[in-house]
């Protein structure tokens, strides 16, 4: 996980440690766990500001709301670490939503069919994104912008612009169901989080991801098959987008071609707030999960406080920029 960071930071941190005392240690802890501290601070603040925040029902609501964007954001984190970007997630969610819904009517197919088709479509869009970026040498911003536009068009075309309802109970379970009182999306969020974290921090796949983002040229020279790896990273992002899209469709009980507008930006924001650097090479899955939770707590808290939606947008914008500012200062220091 820290291959990139530790290589860059270790010398300074070590010498600091010998020269100065506790202040530096505290500051190091803060720069490493800062986002978590900010998160706890927000939770504390919200608990104080409104009596409705810190109750079980509401907290479950917050985490469930966050699960969907959180899962998308984890895939996006991989992409951003390779110095890429994925603007297509929101539109791909819409495409998956209508296609899967079409196969999820009661009494037609088993649950496996819409799930497999949804995941397949998601992975395919990721595969296309990755191939265009890697083999076509087209900047990911443009490649995924194209996918963003085309996938939305496909979603509208497939559904004839209409929502697709009448979904089977077993399908609805993945968005609205609970296991032992815990909403199913939350369980998936945690499982995907653990898998993604292990993948990024404990495997060769993860090391390559950091290496490409840190220095693509060097990665190539070291013998990493950069093209193939980029394609895999975008495919993984598409796959996670599919999981989120399927659960969202079940949550609102209908496949919608208009679903997910601007979700890509929420996902990118979650990753960036969580410490993923848009310049590549830096980022963690727990950071992104906390980033998503911060957005969720903010949305929920501001709604509970009855803050006008105009102010909510301004505040959210300010918080995203502040997070990046802190991040860029941190990077400069190291």
């Amino acid at each position, binding site marked *: 996980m820290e291959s990139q960071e530790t290589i860059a930071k270790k010398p300074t941190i070590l010498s600091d440690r010998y020269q100065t005392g506790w*202040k*530096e240690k*505290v*500051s190091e802890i*803060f720069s490493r766990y800062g986002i978590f*501290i900010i998160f706890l*601070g927000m939770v*504390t*603040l919200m*608990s*104080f500001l*409104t*009596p*409705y925040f810190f*109750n079980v*029902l*509401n907290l479950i*609501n917050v985490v469930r*709301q966050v699960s*969907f964007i959180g899962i998308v954001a984890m895939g996006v984190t991989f992409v951003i670490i390779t110095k890429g970007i994925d603007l297509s997630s929101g539109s791909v969610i819409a495409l998956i939503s209508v296609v899967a819904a079409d196969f999820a009517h009661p009494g037609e197919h088993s649950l496996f069919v819409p799930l497999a088709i949804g995941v397949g479509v998601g992975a395919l869009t990721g595969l296309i994104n990755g191939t265009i970026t890697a083999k076509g040498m087209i900047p990911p911003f443009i490649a995924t912008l194209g996918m963003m536009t085309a996938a939305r068009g496909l979603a*509208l075309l497939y*559904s004839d*612009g*209409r*929502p697709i*309802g009448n979904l089977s109970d077993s399908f609805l379970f993945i968005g*609205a169901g609970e296991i032992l009182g815990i909403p199913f999306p939350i369980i998936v969020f945690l499982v995907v989080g653990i898998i993604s974290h292990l993948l990024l921090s404990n495997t060769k796949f993860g090391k390559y991801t950091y290496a490409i983002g840190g220095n693509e040229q060097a990665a190539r020279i070291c013998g990493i098959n950069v093209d193939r790896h980029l394609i895999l990273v975008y495919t993984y992002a598409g796959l996670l987008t599919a999981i989120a899209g399927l659960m*969202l469709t079940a*949550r*609102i*009980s*209908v496949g*919608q*071609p*208009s*679903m997910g*507008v601007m979700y890509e930006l929420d996902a990118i924001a979650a990753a960036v707030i969580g410490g993923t650097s848009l310049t590549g090479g830096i980022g963690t899955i727990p950071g992104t999960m906390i980033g998503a939770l911060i957005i969720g707590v903010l*949305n*929920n808290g501001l*709604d*509970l406080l*009855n803050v006008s*939606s*105009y102010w909510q947008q301004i505040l959210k914008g300010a918080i995203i920029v502040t997070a990046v500012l802190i991040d860029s200062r941190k990077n400069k220091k190291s």
Partner: protein
Amino acid sequence: MKAQKIFSWLMISVLMIGLLSGCGVSQSSNARGKDHKIVIGAAMPVFDDKWLTYLYDAINDYDAKHGNVEVQMVDAKNDSVKQLTQVETLVVKGVDAIIITPVDTSAVEPMVDAAKKANIPVIVVNRMPTQDVLDKVDAYVGSESIQSGTMQMEKVAKLLGGKGNVAIMTGELGSESQVKRTEGNKDVIKKHPDMKVVREGTAKYQRAEAIQLMENWIQSGDKIDAVVANNDEMAIGAINALKSAGKLDDTLVAGIDGTTDALKYVQSGDLDVSVFQDPVKQGQGAIETAVKLAKGQKLDNKMVWVPYELITKENVEKYVKKWKEYNNN
């Protein structure tokens, strides 16, 4: 500098712990005020919509005029998922009734379920859900979306004498109003064998887009006898393009909404048909019904109808007057 930063963080933590300890006290006094105020949650689809603004104003106006009623209105920004989230939050807050104007009527059921699970009355306004959802809600205020499309096209069919080529200009693809209004249009055309749809395209409810689209249609050389638009803004765009091409006299133009702008075009004879839906009546109906239900009173009728009204040159002055009244309030 670093020491300063650490110090400020320590201060913040101390403050927060202090605040937290005071939390228990504030909680009990906040949750329910001494004099019991009726709190109505209003989950609205999008604030950035001129017509709906009048509906919102009518709801908020009730709050301003009644000291014992508080309205908490939230904006879903045209996102069903966000709207569901907001309804869940209103449920957590324990409001006394929830008014919903759905982003998408086919996605409203989970919202209704969330509220009913907590025994909170639900009033759906303006966009009518399917029968099985209507069975669950406490009231519906408004009309049937599809009727605006049928009413509009029926008048156009009459003016055309039951035959001719029609171009349908649709709104934002996939939006509730686009789907229903277009469906209404086509239902009527099916009944007239001599009428057919020669063109169908979206101008996303925007005047500027409509000008472009209409220009392209004119360029294509097809004979178009009537342009039927999902809203007035696009109808006005089409009028502009037809005017510059010198073809407005041979073409009927119809819109929906009856906006103040559109009424001017009806007065001048450029816009032949529009359909009016009364936002203020719907807003008032919604909040009055919500307050009744919050007080535990019974409704005479679960369906509170506010029907569409057809606007043509003959009756346009009535609506000009109406908007003047609404804008003065």
